[in-house]
């Protein structure tokens, strides 16, 4: 049976409803903070704002603390309620998503570090515009993955997950231009490398957004689609998804 947002809160025990709602709310709050961290980290590079970058690095500890506290809440639910079926999948999906969010937070602070270094050295290499573009795209993926989680929307989760291969391609092409740039201008190497690491962090964030989408499918359909070909999964899922 496929759970929906509405009937997921129809437990006889109101306290159980409240506990699940609460932990879901905290996960989304953490998601909101992580999105903001990511946006700030991207701006730190795109606007050469080292103060903003430093703030992102500082605030990563808040994201870490949220991970620990949400995990704790999930532990308590598992111990007290022994949830089954979609409730169990919800708790597991939250545990996994929170882990991915924490990693996105880490990647955002790596981007912020690159931003701080780049702005300290003044002049930016080429590629900042491309970086901002890919950054916005990845940030949108994270945002939509969390949105799919709130709405239990497997269709949109799958289509967001499939975008990850485009992100990978864009990362590869950024890497190729970076290599050319470094070959032609050896004095730019350390700057270009800093930017390249930021690109790499974006690529990783894309992977984590994809993971979150997979957790949504697991939560709603009960099927683990990790390591499976997403196009095949999509064709198989459509007839059963309604």
């Amino acid at each position, binding site marked *: *049976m496929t*759970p929906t947002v509405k*009937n997921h809160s*129809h*437990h*006889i*025990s109101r306290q*159980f409803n409240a506990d699940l709602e609460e932990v879901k709310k905290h996960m989304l709050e953490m998601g909101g903070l992580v999105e903001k961290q990511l946006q700030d980290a991207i701006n730190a590079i795109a606007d050469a704002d080292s103060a903003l970058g430093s703030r992102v690095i500082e605030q990563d500890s808040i994201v870490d603390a949220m991970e620990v506290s949400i995990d704790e809440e999930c532990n308590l639910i598992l111990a007290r309620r*022994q*949830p*089954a*079926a*979609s*409730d*169990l*999948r919800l708790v597991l999906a939250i545990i996994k998503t929170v882990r991915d969010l924490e990693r996105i937070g880490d990647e955002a602070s790596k981007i912020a570090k690159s931003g701080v270094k780049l702005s300290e050295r003044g002049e930016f290499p080429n590629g900042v515009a491309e970086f901002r573009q890919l950054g916005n795209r990845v940030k949108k993926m994270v945002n939509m993955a969390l949105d799919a989680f709130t709405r239990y929307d497997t269709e949109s989760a799958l289509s967001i997950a499939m975008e990850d291969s485009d992100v990978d391609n864009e990362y590869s092409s950024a890497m190729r231009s970076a290599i050319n740039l470094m070959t032609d201008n050896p004095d730019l190497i350390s700057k270009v490398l800093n930017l390249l690491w930021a690109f790499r962090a974006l690529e990783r964030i894309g992977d984590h957004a994809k993971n979150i989408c997979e957790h949504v499918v697991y939560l709603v*359909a*009960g*099927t*683990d*689609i990790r390591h*499976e070909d997403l196009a095949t*999964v999509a064709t*198989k*899922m459509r*007839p*059963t998804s309604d």
Partner: protein
Amino acid sequence: MPNDIQDPAEPPMGKNRVEFSANYLKREKTVSNNSTDDNCLVVKGLNLFYAKTKQALIDVNLKIPRKRVTAFIGPSGCGKSSLLRCFNRMNDLIDDCVIKGKIYLDEEDIYAKKVDVADLRRRVGMVFQKPNPFPKSVYENVAYGLRIQGINSKRVLDEVVENSLISAALWGEVKDRLHDNALGLSGGQQQRLVIARTIAVEPEVLLLDEPASALDPISTLKIEELINQLKESYTILIVTHNMQQAARVSDYTAFMHMGNMVEYDQTDTLFTNPSLKQTEDYITGRYG
């Protein structure tokens, strides 16, 4: 046998899910290898009425695999105990209880006229919620079934009593007090003694009706551990209100509601991803 009977290895509701992912296909296969062909009990179109007006079971069809644990869950009054009692014809003892449909034990109709009910109840043993040892010694409790069969050889009885108590994981605790009164044992020990008494007559099927619900958590775990060992030799059917217990001990689970068999599937599937909303609502404690 007709094909419309629910078979846990090929759940009709789970078809989409099976095709959905390669992992499911793999899992499905490993189970069907050892269960599809060897069903111990087959229930076909079973209807049960109490006093003509009250129907307790409505057209129940299912196959119960041999040497596996099958759990029956559902709210009070859903018919799970009534169904369990059909398997050794305990309902025969109730006046104006009418049973229609067939139950086959090893392809033999247990409601056929020629069936010797006493022999059926030897083959299909039953253990109840409240331990019910006889007010005799531990030894005589276990030997009872053999004695009424006319077996009195001390050598044979000693051996069967020891083996049954070992199988019931009770031997170590009672071997020095075999001739003490069984009513002096603790509740958990009494329940294991009753299980030893049941398996002493070498049944094929064990029916357990809430076997652990009157026991403390440790005794409950011992019974669950025992069920796990016993399934190597017996087909076990268990009725339980403790859903975590059903999830822990059983291979297959049947969810019943108002006399209907709602969903019957592998326990792992039923407790993580049931096909029907009604099942999901019950196992997750929702009001639907």
